[in-house]
C-alpha cells in the first residue's frame, strides 16, 4: 500500500546487534503468524545470547517454543514444520553443535527441493553463532561457514552490523529456502544505528563498507570490524583500502567483488575461519578466474591458523586475524 508513495528515510535507533536480531524476529512474528522460533533456552532465559529476550511475553510458549537439548530433533522438526506450512526460525546455541544436526541440514533441508523435483519448499532459518574471542575454547568457538557453503540448497548469511543483522534476518525469514544465519558471539554487544520498523536487506547483496582505490579487502562477520579498523590505520599511511562486506556468502554477490577488484587491482580476503578449505579460497579463485587480467598482484588470503581455538586469552588472538595482521598483509600486497 505504501510502496508507491515516496517514503522519508526510516527513523533509526541505536541498538545492539542482538537487540536488532530480536527486533527482526518480533516484527516478522507480528507480520506472519506462521513464523515460530524454536530452540534451547529461548523462552524465559531469552536465549544464550539474549536475542529472543522479551519474545516469550509477546508471543507465548507455543510460538517461542523452547525445546529440550535435541539438536537433530529440533532441526528436523523445523524441516517438517517448514514443509507443511510454518516458517520456523531455529536457534542453535553454538555452530559447533551443528554436527549433531547436520543430517537434517544437509540431507533433508537443503536437498528437499531438488530431490523431490521441486514439489516442496523449506522456508526455515537456522540461526546460530560462532567465532572465537571469549575464552570458550575449542568446542564453542569455531567458524564453520565453509561447511555450509559447500552444500547445494542452503543460503548462507553472516551479518557484521546491527542494521545488517536486522535487515538480513528479515529477508531470511521471508525466503522460501533454508537459510543458515551465522552470527558472531562478539558482535552481539556491538552497537549501531538500525532502521526502525520494517527493514529488509536482500540476500545476495554485498556492501561496500568503506571505499578505497588501492586494494580490496573482502571479508565478513567480525573481521569486517577488524578490516575497517585496519583500513583506518592504512589511511594514515596513505593507503586507501576498500572494504567489501560479503554479508551473504551464498548466493555470493560476485559483481560487487569483481567491480571492486577491477578498480583497485588487488585482493585480500580476510576471515576468521581456518584458511585451509575456507571460503576465502572460493573468493580468491573466483577473482582469479574472472578478473585475472585486472590483478596487479596475486590474491592474498589472511585467515585462521589450522588449529582448534585455544583457551588462554593471550593465545586466542594469535590464531585468528587481528587488526595489525590485516594492516601488515595489506601493506605487503600494495608494496
Amino acid at each position, binding site marked *: 500500500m505504501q510502496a508507491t508513495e515516496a517514503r522519508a528515510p526510516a527513523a533509526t535507533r541505536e541498538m545492539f546487534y542482538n537487540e536488532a536480531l530480536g527486533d527482526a524476529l518480533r516484527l516478522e512474528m507480528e507480520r506472519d503468524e*506462521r513464523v*515460530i522460533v524454536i530452540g534451547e533456552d529461548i523462552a524465559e532465559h531469552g536465549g544464550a545470547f539474549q536475542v529472543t529476550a522479551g519474545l516469550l511475553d509477546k508471543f507465548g510458549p*507455543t*510460538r517461542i*517454543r523452547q*525445546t*529440550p537439548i*535435541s*539438536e*537433530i*530433533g*529440533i*532441526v*528436523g*522438526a*523445523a*524441516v*517438517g*514444520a*517448514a*514443509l*507443511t*506450512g*510454518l516458517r*520456523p526460525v531455529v536457534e542453535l546455541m553454538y555452530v559447533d553443535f551443528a554436527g549433531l544436526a547436520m*543430517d*537434517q541440514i544437509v*540431507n*533433508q533441508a537443503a536437498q*528437499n*527441493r*531438488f*530431490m*523431490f*523435483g*521441486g*514439489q*516442496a*519448499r523449506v522456508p526455515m532459518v537456522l540461526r546460530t553463532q560462532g567465532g572465537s574471542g571469549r575464552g570458550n575454547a575449542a568446542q564453542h568457538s569455531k567458524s564453520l561457514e565453509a561447511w555450509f557453503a559447500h552444500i*547445494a*540448497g542452503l*543460503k548462507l548469511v553472516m551479518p557484521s552490523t546491527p542494521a545488517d543483522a536486522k535487515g538480513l534476518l528479515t529477508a531470511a525469514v521471508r525466503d*522460501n*529456502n533454508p537459510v543458515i544465519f551465522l552470527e558472531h558471539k562478539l558482535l552481539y554487544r556491538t552497537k549501531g544505528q538500525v532502521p526502525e520498523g520494517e527493514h529488509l536487506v536482500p540476500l545476495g547483496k554485498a556492501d561496500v563498507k568503506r571505499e578505497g582505490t588501492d586494494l580490496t579487502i573482502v571479508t565478513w562477520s567480525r573481521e569486517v570490524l577488524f578490516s575497517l579498523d585496519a583500513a583506518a590505520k592504512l589511511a594514515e599511511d596513505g593507503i586507501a583500502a576498500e572494504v567489501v562486506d560479503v554479508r551473504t556468502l551464498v*548466493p555470493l554477490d560476485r559483481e560487487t567483488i569483481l567491480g571492486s577488484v577491477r578498480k583497485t587491482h588487488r585482493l585480500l580476503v580476510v576471515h576468521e575461519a581456518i584458511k585451509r578449505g575456507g571460503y576465502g579460497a572460493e573468493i580468491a579463485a573466483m577473482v582469479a578466474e574472472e578478473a585475472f587480467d585486472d590483478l596487479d598482484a596475486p590474491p592474498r588470503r589472511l585467515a585462521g591458523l589450522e588449529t582448534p581455538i585455544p583457551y588462554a586469552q593471550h593465545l586466542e588472538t594469535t590464531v585468528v586475524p587481528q587488526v595489525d595482521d590485516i594492516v601488515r598483509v595489506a601493506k605487503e600486497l600494495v608494496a
Partner: protein
Amino acid sequence: MSGIDRATALALYRVMRTIRAFEERATQLFGENKIWGTIHSYAGEEAIAAGVCAHLRDEDWITSTHRGHGHCIAKGADLGKMFAELLGRETGYCRGRGGSMHIADTSKGNLGANGIVGGGIPIATGAALTAKQLGTDQVAVSVFGDGAVKQGTFHESLNLAAIWKLPAVYVCENNQYAESLPVKRAFAVDDIAKRAEGYGMPGMHVDGRDVRAVHAAAGEAVTRARAGKGPTFIVADSYRHEGHYYGDPRKYQTKDEIEGWRKQFDPIADARAWIIAAKLASAADLDAIDREIAAEIDRSVAWADQGPLASPIKLPEDVYASD
C-alpha cells in the same frame, strides 16, 4: 470379528495387491536394466502400509523410507508417475531427480521417502507440530524400519512429540533385519514397543502380517492423535520377502529361513483367506481385483515408458525456490 466391512476389506486388499504387483514389476524392470541405481522391495510388508494409511486423509502427512514404494502407493500415489520416476522420466514424481529412494507426493501428504535411516522421523514430528500450531486436526505418521529405532532421531523425536503432545504416530516396521543385522543382535529388549513407555506414550505391538491387526492398532493411534491426545508408537512385526536391495546375495540368511518365512509371512494370502472365510467377498471377486491391478500396472508402465527423459538440470531454480 474385526468389524471391517466389505468395502474396507476390499480397499485394503486392493492396496496390498497393488503394492505387491508394483514391486514385482519394478523388480522385473530392474532385471531388464531399465531401472538405474537400487531398489528396495516392500514385498511381504504390505499389510503395514495398507492398514496404517487406510486411516489417513490426503491432508494427513507421512514420512517414509528407502523401502518406500508401499507407503507411497497406500497414500494414494499415481502408479504411472512412480514408474516414470524409476525410469528417470520428466513425468516422474520428482522429474527423475529422486529415483526409488526419494519419491514424494506432496499432493497426497507424502513428504517423501528417505535415504537416511531415521531421517524422516523428525520431519514427521515437525509436520505434527504444524498441525498443532495451526489448530488443524491433521495427523503425521512416520514409518520406519527396526534399524531406525536405534538412531538418535528416534529418541529425540519421540520425546519431543510426547512432551508437546503432538498428533503423531510412529510406526516401526520390524522386518527382522536392518540390512544384514538381525533384530535379535541389535536390541537387548525383547519387545521394541516397550520403549514407548520411556517416552510417556502408549506402545502397541502388532502382527504386521495381519492387516486387520495393523488396521485396528493404527485406527486407535490415529484417532488418539486427531483427538489431541498425543503420539503413539506402534511396532508391526513383519518379514521382507526379498533381499535388502535388488541383488542382495542374502549371505546372512539361510534358504530354509527365507522359504519358511515367505510362506508363513504372506499378508496377501492371509488377507485373501480372511476375506473369503468372513464371506466379505468371493475368490472370484478377489481374482477380478487382481486382474484389474495387473492391467493398471501394464497401463502405468506403458505410460511411464512414453514419458520424455528427465530434463537437464537447471540452476539455480532446480535447487533454490525463487519465490
